[in-house]
């Protein structure tokens, strides 16, 4: 008993209890439903086991895999752009000494916006009739309104713009934290040795920043599903499934069609996707940390 009280488990106990009750148990329940033809409106179907039928159907469902592929592509592009923009913003703000605190707060402004609000907001920005974007372009002589949320490429770009606006701050603040933590000595020394700015950045700043990059990536890949609210409000996956992502598909299948069993089978496949993303970045992070501590 005493050993237990001094060990780590007593400290981890509250965490484990809460996560078990709120995440693990519901997850097991939804795992079970993915093996049933569970329909919300027919509660009895929860007790009918159909094995892998839902999964088998999904494997042959082209629409599902297209949405899956689009989600992977969307995440890959969005996360990388957010990283690049976030890095740019962090580098810039790092250069500014006077008024930096205010700038930092202003930079975090989009983080105050709930994803669902972001969805509505950008839906109106890209509205083809009265939207901010088309009104703005009209002032510059673009009379023919651009159907932002209809054209396949434009619609995906618009959604991505909303997603990037709402999440780049997270990258920027994490990377800025990294930049502020870089020791000044090596940089000064390198400059004395005649390195130019780019060389300094590439050889000193960037390696030091890498763990932060992976932290940011890991945190964001934990949290990507919040893009669901944005897409749902902006296009709901349409038109003609051109912006369908896994989350819009899952929620329509589960709540509108009431086919919860099938929706949960889709969820499970998508959970593997997020786990894969997270794993990848987490191990990159561990590697980068180790490299840093050797140097």
């Amino acid at each position, binding site marked *: 008993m005493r050993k237990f009280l001094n060990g780590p488990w007593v400290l981890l106990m509250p965490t484990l209890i809460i996560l078990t009750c709120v995440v693990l148990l519901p997850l097991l329940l939804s795992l079970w439903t993915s093996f049933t033809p569970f329909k919300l409106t027919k509660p009895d179907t929860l007790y009918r086991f159909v094995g892998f039928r839902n999964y088998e159907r999904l494997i042959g469902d082209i629409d599902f895999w297209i949405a899956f592929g689009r989600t992977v592509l969307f995440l890959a592009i969005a996360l990388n752009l957010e990283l690049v923009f976030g890095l740019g913003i962090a580098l810039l703000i790092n250069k500014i000494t006077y008024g930096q605190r205010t700038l930092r*707060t202003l930079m975090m402004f989009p983080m105050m916006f709930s994803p669902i609000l972001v969805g509505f907001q950008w839906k109106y920005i890209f509205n083809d009739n009265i939207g901010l974007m088309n009104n703005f372009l009209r002032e510059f002589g673009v009379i023919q309104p651009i159907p932002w949320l209809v054209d396949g490429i434009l619609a995906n770009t618009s959604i991505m713009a909303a997603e990037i606006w709402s999440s780049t701050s997270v990258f920027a603040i994490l990377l800025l934290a990294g930049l502020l933590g870089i020791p000044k000595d090596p940089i000064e020394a390198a400059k004395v040795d005649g390195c130019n700015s780019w060389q300094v950045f590439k050889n000193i700043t960037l390696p030091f920043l890498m763990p932060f990059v992976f932290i940011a990536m890991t945190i964001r890949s934990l949290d990507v599903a919040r893009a669901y609210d944005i897409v749902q409000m902006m296009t709901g996956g349409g038109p003609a499934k051109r912006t369908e992502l896994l989350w819009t598909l899952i929620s329509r299948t589960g709540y509108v069609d009431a086919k919860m069993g099938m929706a949960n089978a889709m969820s499970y496949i998508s959970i593997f996707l997020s786990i894969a993303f997270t794993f990848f970045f987490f191990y990159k992070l561990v590697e980068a940390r180790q490299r840093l501590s050797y140097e």
Partner: protein
Amino acid sequence: MNKKQINNILIWFSAIVLIILIMTPGLWVVLTAFRPQVDVMAKPAVWIPRNLNLIQFETMLFGGSEGSMGRSPIPVLSYLRNSLIISFTSTFIAVLVGTIGGYGFARHNFKHKNKYFLLIMLTRTIPGISLSLPIFIIFSKIGLIDTHIGIILVFVALNIPFTIWLTDGFFRQIPRAMSEVAMTDGCTKLQAFWHIELPLSRSGIASAGIFAFLISWNEYALVSNLARSTDSKTLTVGLMDFTAQFTINWPGMCALAVFIIIPALILTFMVQKHLVTGLTFGGVKG
């Protein structure tokens, strides 16, 4: 002008452009809340507001005037109360539990530690959609639907992993020797933690806190499932009150959005200083 001055001007210029890009979409929402409906929907656009008013706020708080056929007031104050109770309580508990957990990871070595750590992080990757229904069914069996406790519980679970991550990094930086010295001076382990390790890691705790708060404050998908009435609906869920069957009252929604943004902004500004330091040390040395 020398090179340095030009450089400075360039930096400031790009900073200003950047801030405009970041702020405009957000400020546009705030501005919409104060503009009359005709201006908002006007085509061609009205760029310079002809008049600003508080009609949206009045309608929201006290109900519609004639013409808007009995539009009832939106119970903003109840929503605000729920949001505050839920966000602050869940942040407090998540930070408390997470800090204890982070301390556990930082100060103890045990088998498969890294794997447990990653496993706890992974609980965060599960999309809300796959959890919302099972949580709903379980909560409805034990009577937690439409209660503060139910929603707080979910947010605590949502926010623990990141708190553990940040605080774990912090505690590792504090040399064990410091608390060991204190303990030889007669402190208990708990006293040493309370007087030495905790104050040293307050930046990390503060930054975990602000992230947890913003996530709770802005969450929609899960709360909209668990909250039903004014007993527990939060401000973000209240946004949907402005969507009728087929219409969206966008200026009205913006007025409520102002209520959501301002408290979050104030809080963020207050803990801003800790935020950057907190992230710097919390993340890197894990």
